[in-house]
């Protein structure tokens, strides 16, 4: 947890409120323009890009990273970082799958609860260590990245768990009214997060704690509680992502999700959320997730080598932050 706060930044945030609204509007607007431009280019380059089935593919492909990135947004808004999301997701997937054998066709609720519970439990450990014992988030979640992966291998003995029940597979492969279930889950989590950050006291506290922890504490906000909560949220969403990936690939693989934290952080950063905390919007994260997904999809459709995919993704992250910095400098 950051111990020092800059008085200057707290003054800027309070006195330049009107400009900040404009700036956040610009930030949303900018990323939407970038996203639309990307879609226009890709739809010209590939006749298949705008097809309904392809757009559903894109949404299905981004839904897992999307769920992780939403949890990551909460954490980053409080000036934190969660490097352990990929490992926690793999752990939750293995735990859930171990309760979702083909014979347990009726009991969908048990693997769901176990998966979410596994994610929540690890998230709570991150939360307690960061909030109560002031372990820097980078260090704590780096440790958890390794510990959760270790737990995954211990629990699974290094072997994949497959032969999952068809009701469980529905979470990753089913559709409701033609829309894939993972997409619906992602949409539901997005709406919930959007509502929470925008309309609830908890949401305002998350911004306040990230913007200025000292001032937040002085004004009576339970700063430790808020910080604990965002890691618990991130962990639970890793649990959900774990259910989704196991159901989508029909197996929980202990090596799944390596380096997924990078895509989740990238989506949040591209979406304009400041790594310095207190600034950013969940809609930005949505577009960050979509931009990464559309690039991957588009380059696949065009048959471009995956080497370029990594190059382009990295460049976009840097440009996104650069634009953010120059905007802040203009404020």
């Amino acid at each position, binding site marked *: 947890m950051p111990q020092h706060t800059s008085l200057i930044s707290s003054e800027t945030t309070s006195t330049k409120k009107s400009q900040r609204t404009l700036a956040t509007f610009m930030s949303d607007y900018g990323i939407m323009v970038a996203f639309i431009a990307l879609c226009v280019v890709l739809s010209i380059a*590939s006749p*298949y890009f705008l097809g309904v089935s392809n757009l559903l593919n894109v949404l299905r492909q981004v839904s897992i990273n999307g769920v992780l990135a939403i949890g990551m947004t909460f954490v980053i808004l409080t000036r934190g970082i969660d490097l352990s999301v990929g490992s926690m997701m793999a752990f939750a997937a293995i735990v859930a799958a171990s309760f979702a054998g083909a014979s347990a066709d009726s009991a969908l609720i048990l693997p769901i609860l176990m998966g979410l519970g596994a994610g929540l439990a690890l998230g709570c450990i991150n939360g307690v260590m960061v909030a109560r014992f002031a372990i820097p988030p980078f260090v704590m979640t780096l440790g958890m990245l390794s510990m959760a992966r270790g737990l995954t291998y211990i629990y699974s003995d290094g072997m*994949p768990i*497959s032969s999952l029940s068809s009701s469980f597979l529905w979470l990753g*492969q089913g559709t409701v009214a033609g829309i894939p279930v993972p997409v619906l889950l992602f949409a539901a989590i997005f709406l919930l997060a959007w509502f929470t950050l925008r309309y609830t006291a908890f949401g305002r506290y998350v911004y306040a704690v990230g913007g200025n922890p000292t001032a937040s504490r002085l004004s009576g906000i339970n700063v430790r509680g808020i910080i604990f909560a965002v890691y618990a949220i991130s962990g639970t969403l890793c649990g959900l992502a774990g259910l989704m990936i196991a159901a989508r*690939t029909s197996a929980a693989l202990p090596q799944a999700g390596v380096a997924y934290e990078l895509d989740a952080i990238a989506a949040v950063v591209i979406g304009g959320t400041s790594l310095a905390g207190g600034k950013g919007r969940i809609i930005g994260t949505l577009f960050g997730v979509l931009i990464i997904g559309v690039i*991957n999809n588009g380059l*696949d*459709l*065009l048959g471009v080598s995956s080497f370029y995919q990594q190059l382009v993704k990295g460049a976009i992250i840097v440009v996104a932050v650069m634009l953010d910095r120059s905007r802040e400098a203009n404020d």
Partner: protein
Amino acid sequence: MKKIFAGLAISTFTAAINTQAFAADPIRIGAATYGLQGEFMQLWSNALENHPAVMSGDIEITVFDGRYDALVQSNQFDSMITRQYDAILFVPIDADACIGPVIRATTAGIPVVGSNTRCNSDQLASFVGSDDILAGQMVAEEIIDKIGGDGKVVIIEGPIGQSAQIDRAKGIENVLAEYPGIEVLERRTANWSRAEALSLMENWLTSHQDEIDGVIAQNDEMAIGAIRAIQASGRSLDNIAVAGVDGITDALKAVQQGQMATILQDATAQAQGALDVALARLDETDSLPLSETWTKYKELDWANGEADTYNIPWTVVTSSNVETLLNQRQ
């Protein structure tokens, strides 16, 4: 931690004394794997533990997890040399990075037997594995058997530059060169990953619609990812042939359901065969070879454990042998 180190020191010390005092102490063999995070290396390590000489206590096996890092493997070699292992079984992550460690061990008088993955070193005592070029040829032939000499295929590759990827690609290329009627629509890596192959195949099914007749995957995980994508798109696996390599459990189940073809790489034979060859080089055990490997494959010549290379044959998994193979996994 301290206790463990103390324990290690004592056991090393007593082992050193025992070597001089008694001839009958267990032979210590280190198994340096490239990493224990995949099903194949798990099967390979388990097979070592089940080797007759290990079960009887004549041999002590220590399995090292190379964590997919050539440097980690190199360091593990140094500690095996320091602790004076009698022999080393080596499954290197990289065919060139393995050369240094092999030279260091051989110089220290410890024979190194390669297994599963190749090492471009002439100092290896022997190599017991399966020929990945052959695997590439077989997986391509499986697809051509299904779709005939004319058709359009996509190829899903392993991490570019890894020796299994290079060799399997070479084998696939060899076969495709003989069939000018086969058009390769796409060739991309999915890094051995099921989730990556799933997304990749979804996107290809979009860009090529119903053009794709066959999917040649360099491993089973990626083949299964492709199957999931084909099913999710509402297409029938009757119209798209899928084949992979390795014979992992999920792939055997998919063969059972008629969804794909695979060729099995025998982890047990590679591991136990390598151990037999290492024992032959140590010349301290009678009545070799001990494992079933050599009776299982009639075409495999034991040659007193003196050959440079033992190629464990691949087995094409079909509906007629899949039950037996699945039962062996239990």
